[in-house]
């Protein structure tokens, strides 16, 4: 008789189920409650959702501590005891979302908990010079000794208020018809990087970036701190509307937010986004009314139940867990390339977490991603990086240079990591290569304005 645990993450995800929802460890305990690591089952990918079909994991009878690290960084755990021959349901229940409509964003870590008390070691010191800066939370004490803008400041200030006052909402525009340089169309032959460096973009970004008057993105939900919108290939979607548009990857889509405090951000929209099994899905756009320092106003996540959690791990820096999820999906991702954007995400994670020097099958697929999708800069960036990492001689170095230049010509990478890797790659050539130096200067000027914590490229166009 087999003994098993039936594992899932019991989390509301808007009625959906994520087959690859989270990474769990099943840690064995003996009868006395001591650890028995030999019976552990590690790195188990479990489904998530209230209606998800649990993963059946065969185990030896006994006691187990089941822990799942969520993309948000939260940990859900449960201790169970399973008898021989039993199939024990194990529903791991993570923290609740403040609203059902924020559940996906909270699951991915885009909606952090902001409430809380000052921990014991941090004693309030007194009124803060910066107390007007963040009315909803204790401020930073700008003691003369501690420059706020640099490494060390001291925490102080009043305890947080329970409910922050609502901030005016940024206006978000849908740029479905960008100017040629941003369109991703091969025939455009215009330089996206040069365009984004122009002062005209800062003066009047909509006029400089949109070929047609852009519509305002309507929110489908909101609270005092966040707004949520849904995006499809042909523009913003209503609350229940499906992405039925038939248009392809070009012209590329962007959203641009403009806040009353003068912050203007441009973000690449990862569309079209096809699930591997269920057709196109919408991209959720979270708008933060009052982003913290270092935080972007805009955060995007495709409502792809299979790849979405992997993107969440990727954004939070948990690349080892992201790798496990992408490895499960890699045949789907690279076999048919039905969703090149998802394949590109997998390429970043697999490249970033590469463990050994031996060539692996996905490394052969990366050049295909670069070659078959000329609208996608990210494949060329990954190809360039792999060529440099495994270079055997000058030929590989020259090919890497060509791949990085091709990526440059294709415009803004969809993923922030691509922007970093493009800077890294071009800078390796810049010292001895004038053309690389010129391109690097333009890419860096954009990268300096990027919010690198967002998985999808997000650039602050306004001056600091």
């Amino acid at each position, binding site marked *: 008789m087999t003994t098993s645990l039936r594992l899932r993450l019991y989390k509301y995800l808007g009625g959906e189920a994520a087959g690859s929802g989270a990474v769990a460890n099943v*840690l064995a305990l003996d009868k006395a*409650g001591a*650890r028995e*690591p*030999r019976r552990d089952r590690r790195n188990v990918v479990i489904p998530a959702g209230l209606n998800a079909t649990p993963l059946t994991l065969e185990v030896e009878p006994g006691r187990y501590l089941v*822990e799942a690290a969520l993309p948000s*960084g939260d*940990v859900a*755990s449960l*201790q169970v005891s399973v008898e021989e021959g039993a199939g024990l349901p194990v529903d791991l229940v993570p923290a609740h979302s403040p609203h059902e409509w924020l559940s996906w964003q909270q699951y991915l870590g885009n909606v*952090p*908990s902001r409430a809380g*008390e000052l*921990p014991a070691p*941090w004693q309030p010191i007194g009124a803060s010079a910066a107390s007007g800066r963040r009315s909803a*939370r*204790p401020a*930073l004490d700008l003691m*003369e000794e*501690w*420059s*706020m*803008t*640099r*490494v*060390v400041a001291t*925490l102080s200030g009043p*305890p947080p208020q329970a409910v922050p006052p609502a901030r005016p909402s940024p206006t978000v525009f849908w740029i479905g018809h960008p100017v040629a340089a941003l369109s991703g169309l091969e025939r455009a032959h215009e330089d996206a990087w040069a365009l984004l460096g122009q002062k005209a973009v800062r003066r009047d970004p909509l006029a400089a970036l949109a070929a047609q008057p852009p519509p305002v993105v309507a929110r489908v939900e909101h609270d005092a701190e966040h707004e949520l919108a849904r995006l499809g290939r042909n523009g913003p979607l209503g609350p229940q509307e499906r992405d039925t548009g038939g248009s392809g990857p070009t012209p590329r889509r962007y959203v641009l937010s403009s806040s009353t405090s003068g912050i203007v951000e441009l973000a690449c929209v990862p569309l079209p986004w096809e699930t591997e099994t269920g057709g196109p899905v919408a991209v959720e756009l979270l708008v933060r009314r009052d982003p913290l*320092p*270092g935080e972007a106003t805009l955060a995007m996540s495709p409502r792809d139940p299979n790849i979405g959690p992997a993107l969440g791990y990727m954004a939070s*820096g*948990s*690349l*080892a867990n992201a790798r496990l999820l992408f490895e499960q999906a890699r045949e789907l991702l690279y076999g048919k390339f039905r969703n090149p954007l998802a394949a590109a995400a997998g390429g970043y994670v697999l490249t970033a*977490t590469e*463990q*050994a020097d031996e060539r692996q099958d996905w490394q052969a697929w990366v050049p295909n991603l670069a070659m078959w999708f000329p609208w996608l800069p990210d494949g060329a960036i990954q190809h360039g990086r792999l060529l*440099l*990492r495994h*270079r055997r*001689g*000058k030929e590989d*170095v020259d090919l890497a240079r060509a791949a990085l230049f091709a990526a440059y010509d294709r415009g803004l990478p969809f993923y922030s990591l691509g*922007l*970093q890797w493009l*800077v*890294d790659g071009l*800078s*390796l050539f810049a010292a001895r290569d004038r053309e690389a*130096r010129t391109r*690097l200067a333009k890419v*860096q000027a954009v*990268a*300096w*304005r*990027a*919010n*690198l*914590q967002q998985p999808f490229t997000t650039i602050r166009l306004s001056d*600091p």
Partner: protein
Amino acid sequence: MTSRFVVDSRPVVGPATHAIVIGVGRYPHLRNGDGPLAANHDGMGQLTSPPHSARAVARWLIRSLRDPAKPLADVALLVSEDKPRPFLNTRTGDAVPVATATIDEIEAALTEWHGRGNAREEDRLLFYFCGHGIARGSDVALLAADYGVKPANALDGAIDFRSFLQGMDGCAAREQIYFVDACRASSDSLLRAGQYNGRPIFQPDLNAPARAFRRAPVFYSTLAGADAYGRARRPSPFTEALIRGLQGAGADDSEGDWRVTTTRLKEALDFFLERATRGLGRAQVPAADNQAPISMHVVRGTPRGTAIVACEPPEAMAAAKLSYVAGGKARSRPARSGDEWVLELPAGSYEFVADFDPGPYRPERYQAYVRPVYRRIPLKVRP
């Protein structure tokens, strides 16, 4: 000692770990410094936390770092502080002079450190920096003590960290772990500086064939574009979290013994920084690049995990008498409160109890294995 930068060294046969620790607090050319004020000071001033942070890290490495596969061979330490003082090596009892963390000294020390790591691919390098950092995008400049001494070239007093990382790929050691406890907020100085972000220290060589794959995780104390915080004359919260993580909160027992791994360490840093700065929302969220799993320390004994005990519903907390039982001994929460009860406990099994005076709730007991990093203990009490 083999070098004026090295404050501890010991003979190691075979693969070894080489550490360099830098803490910069005194900046003569920043606000309230004793030298001419740099034009590009950007409002930056004197710091007292970094020297304490650096010394704490060096002390911990010398006293506690244990990896039989790659034992610690040497620790280099550079500090810039108001009143320079020697470093007391608690292993040897020696008071060792500490080099000042000027850019020339840092460059010389990094060159030596690179040389020590260049002996074999199996070696491991550890880099720790605490001090002022300025950034734009993925470019980060780590400021040495004499930042601004050259009025027309202030950034000559800084490490161009991105280029430095790239250049370190030329070092033979294939495991390199970096800790950067510094701000990454955008800087006017850097934005004005064109493409020069400081000294790269090492130049990458594209003509050389690629070496074996390098595992080089980088732990930042804060997100790109954000500030990092600390406290006067004490180690910074990131450094405290780092040391707690290294002591065992970042350990896992997948191999049977408890080992601190870089992946688990990231979880520990996330957890402790979140708790240390939770009053500020997400004011300081640590970040990691190039995440790669490296087992870097074998914990002596049993590490501690954090147990966060709370009643469900939360309203029951204020009325609950909380306790836990381990090894037949019970310990109670000192006073009733509506807050979570947060405990640091050696990894192991415990029975947690919520008891109540006669009234709306029934007592509840919960068996739980507590392990690093943390475990939430939900006591679901019923009317």
